[in-house]
């Protein structure tokens, strides 16, 4: 299976780790290493796989989207980008933000629990504390691949 990953959210202005970033990428990638995986991202982000595409124009990102069988992303810009180009299904890893507000029904929205959602969904992320416990474990993601 061809998998495109968009693993990180934008860096916060206060330098803190973005609470939307999934903490278990290394473990997940180990579990799905038999698949062909490509990563997209921007300069400064951690490179997780050999096929890494940095700061690419949207036209090229669209080609990568067309290439993949499924994509996996945190709650960042990418699911919104995909939603503009049809309905290719992806897996979105949610933590404290609410997929009912910021997600799309056609995706596999993995939310560990509504109890983890932050109270003010519309506040800036700099005001939020990072908590790795709000995300599903990698084994849960495997069920959908």
């Amino acid at each position, binding site marked *: 299976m061809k998998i495109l990953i968009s693993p990180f959210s934008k860096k916060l202005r206060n330098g803190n780790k973005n609470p939307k970033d999934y903490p278990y990428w290394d473990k997940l990638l180990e579990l799905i290493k038999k698949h062909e995986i490509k990563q997209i991202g921007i300069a400064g982000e951690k490179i997780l796989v050999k096929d890494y595409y940095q700061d690419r124009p949207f036209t090229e990102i669209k080609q990568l989207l067309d290439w993949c069988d499924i994509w996996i992303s945190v709650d960042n810009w990418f699911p919104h980008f995909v*939603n503009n180009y049809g309905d290719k299904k992806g897996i979105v890893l949610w933590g404290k933000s609410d997929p009912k507000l910021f997600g799309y029904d056609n995706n596999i929205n993995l939310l560990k629990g509504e109890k983890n959602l932050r109270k003010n969904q519309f506040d800036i992320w700099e005001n939020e504390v990072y908590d790795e416990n709000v995300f599903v474990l990698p084994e849960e993601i495997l069920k959908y691949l």
Partner: protein
Amino acid sequence: MKILATISTKNRYDILFNAIISVALQTKRPNKLIIFDDNENPVDLRNLSIYQYAFNLLNEKKIEWEVIYGEKKGQHHNHQKANKMGYDLVWRIDDDEFAENNVLETLYNLIDDNVGAVGGLILMPGYNWAKTQNTNINDIRYNVQWHKFNGVKEIEHLNSSFLYRAGIIDYNLNLSKVAHTEETQFTYELFKRGYKILATGDCITWHFRQPTGGIRSEIDNNLWKNDEDIFRIWLNWGKLIILDNGLGDHFAFKKILPEIQKKFNKITISCCYPEVFSGIKGLNLISINEAKGIIPIENYNIYKFMRDNNWNKPIIEAYKKLYL
């Protein structure tokens, strides 16, 4: 609903008394009257006997009152403070006006969930001008409120004195001290937000137009020109979209752009990531700073909109509600 009445005054102690009395004598009483005093040399009005009577009358009518010394930056700054004081409705009346005693009651009775602002007639005794009545934003010279009519009209903007839903739209603080067109822009933004703007001919606020004081204290024509330029640029933008947010928010918005293009001929997008819209014809793309220099962009903040409306649906639906 809690109602705040406000008067912004400058160099008109000789006539301000009338406006205060007219507030005191309303059949529908506001909860509070705040007078923003922008006088160059403000005095404690409580030391002037005529004003002692006025404040005592407010006390008798159980209308709380307060005088706040303004920052002398123009009445729009004072209106913005009133706008954010937590009242449901704000009734603004100019310092050279006198509202007949049924004005607030008449305006209040027209407020419902869909109404953003409502104003009555603003007439100068002895004058009956503005034979042409415009309800449209593109020609504000002949406001519908300046000419007698009966009943209620749905319009696009209001002038001078009106009752409005507070805390939704910000006043344009980019305007100069004279704040030319401040109320036009404010009420038209409420209109664009989807609220009805109403004018009623069933109540009269008399305007004792003064040659001096108020905004006519300023003699620098450049101030008016500056404000007129801002107004014209703002109008010329057509349908204005502000995306002072993240890349994903731009793409979420982009999904509804075709619907917006069907509805509006002229579209200006002020954004952080113009490349999201590259190749799309018919868009005027400007920077966030360019928009900031003309209007209060917070009025277009999608996150503020969702927060203020306790939003619980997808963000795309919020964009539709804000812009369509």
